[in-house]
Structure formats: C-alpha cells, structure tokens
C-alpha cells in the first residue's frame, strides 16, 4: 500500500519542471500511473525515458534538458543550429552555447567545432563570421550561405545600430 506521505509522480514532475528540470524515470520515488502519464510530456532518450510538465515546460526546452542530462552535447548543438536555421530562420551565435541553459565549457565548444568539421553527419553545418569578430553557425540545408552571412552581421552589429 502506498505510503500516504509519498509525493505522487505527477507532483514530482510538476515540481521539477517548474524549477526547469526534466525527471528521469529512475528519479521518481513513486510509480507513475497511466492517468498521470497522459497528463505529462515524455521524451525517450538513449538512457531511458524523461518526463516533464507541458504546462510549465515547452517540449523544445525539455529536449535541451534531456540532451544535457545525457551529455549529448554534439547532438544538442547540431539540433539547435538546425532548428534555428529551419524555423526562424537565423544563424546561431557560438556564444550561445557558453551561456545558460547550455553552459558548455570552452573545451566542449572546441570539441564540437572540430566534430562538425571531421565527423560524418554534420556536413550541412557551416560557420560564418561578423565584423565584430563573433562566429555563428548555420545549417546550409535550411539557410542560404549568403543569407546566413547577412543575418549573422545583422545580429552582431546591425541591430544595435538600428534601434
């Protein structure tokens, strides 16, 4: 019989999501019911299933958190870059990955950049630079290189000059 003091799986997921985290299935101290499962979002990662509360956490952010939990930094960076190029469209500042929520170390950033060049599966990802020295990344599958160059310069320099 369930201990009356046990916090339900749903409440645990809600609490964690409100604080900005996803919950791995193994991190739940109560079993999640089918009904509760229908009320939360879930993402299948390489190391199991993660839950989040869709009322306080967007699926895209949950996906970022799952990748961070699983230390899939390269996949996360590539997914972010492709999503930016495809959706908005825009280039992705390299500096984004050093900020929260990503908080990659400088070493991780360098490994990612090298991997984009050397590893198969990332041929679409390219670099571009702005006149202030900032580097951005984009997916040429979704964004024309000339457009990417313009958007990078605009983001770094142009926008501030055109308030």
């Amino acid at each position: 019989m369930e201990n009356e003091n046990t916090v339900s799986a749903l409440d645990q997921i809600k609490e964690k999501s409100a604080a900005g985290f996803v919950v791995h299935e193994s991190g739940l101290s109560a079993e999640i019911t089918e009904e509760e499962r229908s009320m939360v979002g879930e993402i299948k990662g390489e190391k199991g299933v993660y839950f989040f509360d869709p009322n306080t956490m967007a699926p895209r952010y949950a996906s970022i958190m799952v990748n961070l939990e699983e230390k899939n930094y390269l996949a996360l960076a590539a997914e972010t870059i492709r999503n930016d190029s495809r959706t908005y469209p825009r280039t992705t500042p390299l500096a984004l990955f050093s900020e929260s929520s990503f908080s990659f170390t400088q070493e991780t950033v360098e490994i990612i950049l090298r991997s984009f060049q050397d590893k198969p599966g990332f041929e679409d990802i390219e670099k571009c630079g702005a006149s202030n020295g900032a580097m951005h990344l984009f997916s040429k599958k979704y964004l024309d290189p000339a457009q990417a160059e313009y958007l990078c310069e605009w983001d770094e320099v142009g926008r501030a000059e055109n308030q």
Partner: protein
Amino acid sequence: MAIQGGWAGKILRVNLTEGKISHEDTEKYKNYIGGMGFGYKVIWDEVLAGTKAYDEANKIVFGVGPLTGSGALCSGRTNITSLLASNPFHGVSDSHMGGHFAVELKYAGYNGIIIEGKSERPVWLRIEDDDVSIEDASLYWGHGTFKTITGVTAVMGGDSQVAAIGQAGENMVNLSVIRTGPSHSAGGHGGVMGSKNLKAIGVKGTGAVHINMENMEWYNLNKFTMSIIGANNQHVVPRTPQPWAEHDHPGSRWTAKKDLYWEKADPPIETGICTPEQTNKVGYRTMKAMLDLGANGPKYTVRMGGCASCPIRCHSHVNVPQLKNYGADPNVANTCMGFFGPFSVMFKGVNIEGEHKDDATVIARALGSHVADEYGVWCNYGQLSRDLKWTYERGILRRVIPAAEYNSIRWDLLKKGDPGFFEDFYRRIAMKEGELSRLGEGAYWIDRHWNLGEEYWTDKNNKLWTKIGYPVHHANESNGQVGALISSMFNRDAQCHTHQNFLGSGLPTKLQQDVAEELWGDRNAIDEPANYRPMSRGKARFEKWSIVRNVLHDSLTLCNWMWPLALSPLKERNYRGDTALEEKYFTAVTGEEMSEEELDLAAERIFTLHRALTVKQMGTVNMREEHDRLTGWQFDMDPDKEAFTAGTIKLDRDDFEKGLTMLYEEMGWDPQTGAPTRETLEKLQLKYVADELETLDLLPA
C-alpha cells in the same frame, strides 16, 4: 456629440507676441482625435504655406489625446508638431517625448497647447490648472536642460512636470531637442521654442481623466491587455532558451533571465525568469541597460524607468561614478538612440586609461548621453555623428573650417578615444561656435554649404534615405519594400515602429505569415529576413496599416514602441494579440462607439492631411519625384548580388516604383504623383483641404 470621457475639454492657446492666453473648445478638433491629429489641423488652418520653422508666424503644438493619462497601457506620450528646420522645405513634422508631461497636461485640463508668436525676452510658461502665466526666464536662459528643469521644478513644486530646451534650442540649432523628466527627449523642434524665446513649459494639474466604463469592466480590459503584452517593442519571446518558452530569439528585448541583475540597486535585483503569466513582473522583462550600454551595463544599473502608465520601463537608469572625472553627474538615464547617437561621435573608438573596455563603453555612452541632453542637441537618428565622421575622414572639415578654428578643436581627444571630446564637440554645436557647428543644421544644409557631392548621398555607409536629409530608420532591412516605403513618406526619419515591432517579435517567419494572412489577406506581406520577394499587394496593405496605426497611436496618444499588440507571448492564443484593443480603449474611455475600421479611417484622415500639408508646403503635386525619391545606394548596394536573392536587402528600381504606386493606391492617392485626390479628401471629410489645394492648383489632374 459633446465631449465625454477622455478628452480634457479645452485647448490652451498662448500668443507670445501679445502675451495673450486663451482657451478654446476641443470639439473643433475631435475629428483629428488628438496629439498628432490636432497638430496637423492647427498647422493647416493657421500656418501659411511658405512659412519657415523659425518665423514668428510658425506655431508649435504640444498635443495629447483622449487616452493620454487614462491609465491605458503606455499612454504617457506627448506629440509635438511644427515646421522642421532641418527639412529643406521646412515641412511639417512631429517629435515625441514620453515621461509624465503629457498626463500632467491632461490633469491640468488641456488636450493641447498651441504656442504662437514670439516673446521679446526669454520666458517660460507656467500652467497650474486654469492659472496660466508667462514668466521671466532670464535666470535659465543660457543654461542647459537639467539646470532649467530643476529650476522650474523648484518654483512649481515636485509634483509638476517640465519640458525645456538647452542652449541648442535657444540658438536655433536645427538638430535640437525638447526634453522632459530625467530621460525623455523629443528631437527636432527645440529651435522652434528657441525662436519664440520660450525656454520651458511647467505644468501642474489637479484634475483627472474621466473614463466612461464601469470599474470592473475597466479592470478586466486592463487585465486582458496585461495578459497579452510582451517586452519592449512587443517582443513576445525571451532572448535565451527558457523552460516556459517554445520560441526564443537573440534579438528579443525580453532579456530577463536567471542571474541577470540590476546590480546597483540596493539590494541588487534579479530580473530572473519572467513567464507571460507573471504579469506583476512585466517591469523586469526588459533589462534595457544590457542592450544600451553593452556587456557591463547591468553592473551600473540602478533600475529601469519610463513613461506614465507603462509597465515596460524601457529607460536605463544607471549610476556611473567615473562620470565625476568629467565633471558630470554620475546618475544618467536614457534609452536606445539617446545612448547610441551621442556615443557614435567617438567614431575612432573609446579608450580610457585604467578601465576595461566594457566599462569604458558604459562611461562613454552615459557621458555622451548626458552632455548631448544637457545642451539639448538631437542626433538626427545617428546622422550627426555619421556626418562628423564622413566629413572628417574625407578631409572636408579641414577644407571648410578656418585653420585657427580647426586647430582648436580637440581632435587629440577624439583620436585618443577620450570621451572628454563630447564636451568640446557638443558645446560647439549647441553654441553655434564656428564652421564646425554647421553639422547641427542637418544633412541637407551641410551639403548646401559644403558642397559634399553626390557620393555623400549615395554612400551606403552614410545611410541617408532621401535627399530630404534624414537617415535609415527601420527601412529596407525591415521586410524590404515595407520598411523602405514607410521610410519615404514622412518629412524626417520615419518614427514608425508598427512594422518593426511585428517583424522583430521573435516568432518564426511562417507564423508571422499566418498572422499576415489574417490581417492583410496575403501571407506574402512578410518575407524571410534578407530574402525578399518582389512587391505584393499584401506588402502595400501592411505598409498602410503600419503607418495608419503609428499615426493613430501618436494621436490617441499611445506608445508606438509597444502598440499595436498584434502578437502576444501566449501559445494558447497561437501567439495572436488583439488589433482591436485601441478601439476598445477608445470606446471605454470616451464612451463613444467607434469600430476598429472607423478609428483607422480617422488616422488615415490625419496622415492624408500630413500629405496634403507637404504638397502645400512644397508647392508641387509630384510627391513621387520631389519627395519620395531615394538617394540611390538602396538599388546599387551589394554589386555582386541581384535584388530578390538571398543575403541582400538591395531594392530594385522598377519594383520600388511599383511599390510607390501600390501604396498610393492603398491610401487613395493619385497613383502617378502620390498626391491626395479630391475624391479621397472628401471621403475623409477633408473637403476644405481639397478646395484650398484646388485654388493653389495642387490637386492631381
């Protein structure tokens, strides 16, 4: 219909030549809503074509509207209308200021002030409800805006509001401001006040703005508005990825995030994550100092400030102790171009011994803002500093300035990156000291004096939009033809943010296109940034809507840096806002039923009156050739790229002509010349305008 809620009932008229003060009924002006609309109506009726900005016969109108001071969101702005001296033909123009002057004017019982004539000696205007007097200003004349505002406030009391000019305005420098509060400037008309020997206006009111709606209904209307409001510029997604947000965008002014502080507040305040539901934290969403002052802006931020009835607070209030080294007050407040415009005078960079470059940036931006504000110099949306750079680098200043004067200018400070240069530069501009001060006349006039050649206009980096002498302000970089055509319609830089707010919201282009289809019946109104397609009917409708709403806001008065709320941060609304909100507020406050379309039509009347005023002042119907012509770089930039290819904002000459025609058609103007037709003028209840234009042979054939 008699005046009900919203409007204050009367307009104050002050004749400085005769020292005469009178009141008149607002009824006569009601078709023109308020603010900008009042201003154009007064100029049309009372200022003869051919009058120059600094002539005694020119008038200056401080206009507020039915929503000003009502408590409606962001309803604290003053619209100032007069002839503009930096404009080649002294065309009618507006400048705007926020702060609390506008609401105080309403509390004193006025919808506007018409200033006419010219005083024999320096004066300031004292308004305390019905008690209005013209006071001696000799104590303030020759001083900057800060001292003047402080002085008049000391006389009138801390609960008054003051608008004043600095030395630039007194000396009729074309690029001069009228300033109020700690950080609110209206650029362009300071010299008109100066030409009338009017140093300041102080106002104190004890009345109220009446609202024709039950309390609970009013509460609910405001609650709904707060639920769909975004951050500054109605950006509706956060700048960084955050748990609550499906979208984010690095260009968003929704800067709030964990570990971002107003660091000089006592105790420091964390902006934190602010979700759309946390409407009590709207004031934390935009931490403008990190945008205005760079990476170290937060370190010096005491708080954010802003205008009456505005929960957004887009003005950075900073404390920069290093300013004492330059003899300046360490407490500075400003926003956007108020920081960027003066700062860019230091075009060789900033370098302060012992300071990190990010601190040096804060020091220079704060000091530049302070010095320019004190003297009351306007940056002409950044053109003043570009003109300095352009003429300096090409040796023009060395050619046109007498050697003794040239050698006395502190170029050494400029070259070293020492912001002490601001004081030398702005003093010369404001006091009209020597040939250098011609820079303060504006682009058109310096070309006339110094013969800068065609390259001055066609240089892309110099950013001049038309030969009228104003620069880019959300032009072809804002959806190609949309921003480009909007920018060509006014007599100064377009101060239209309607289109810019929409495009900069942070939402994906496809989602914006869905909304465009709903609003303008054509998803082709919106293109991907820097991947434009040829002109379309949807773009013309988007342009017209943007201008009309801008004019509506400056007439009601609402802040166009927030309104209209066409989009929202709410996923459950599929990010839709509510374009009928202006009408809802208008009806709620005034008690007069007006549909969204009727209100837009009233704004169309106001903008067509602006066009008619321009036709009359220029003495030509041919607006296409004489007024709306671009300088050329817009078509010739990026020589290796074709217009309508990815990666360029280049325009196409034929397409631009087509765009003009389409916009003229949308406005009901003559498709050839772009001048208002009799038919349209009559439809807009401007028959008297058509009649007068006809007598002047200024109606299109």
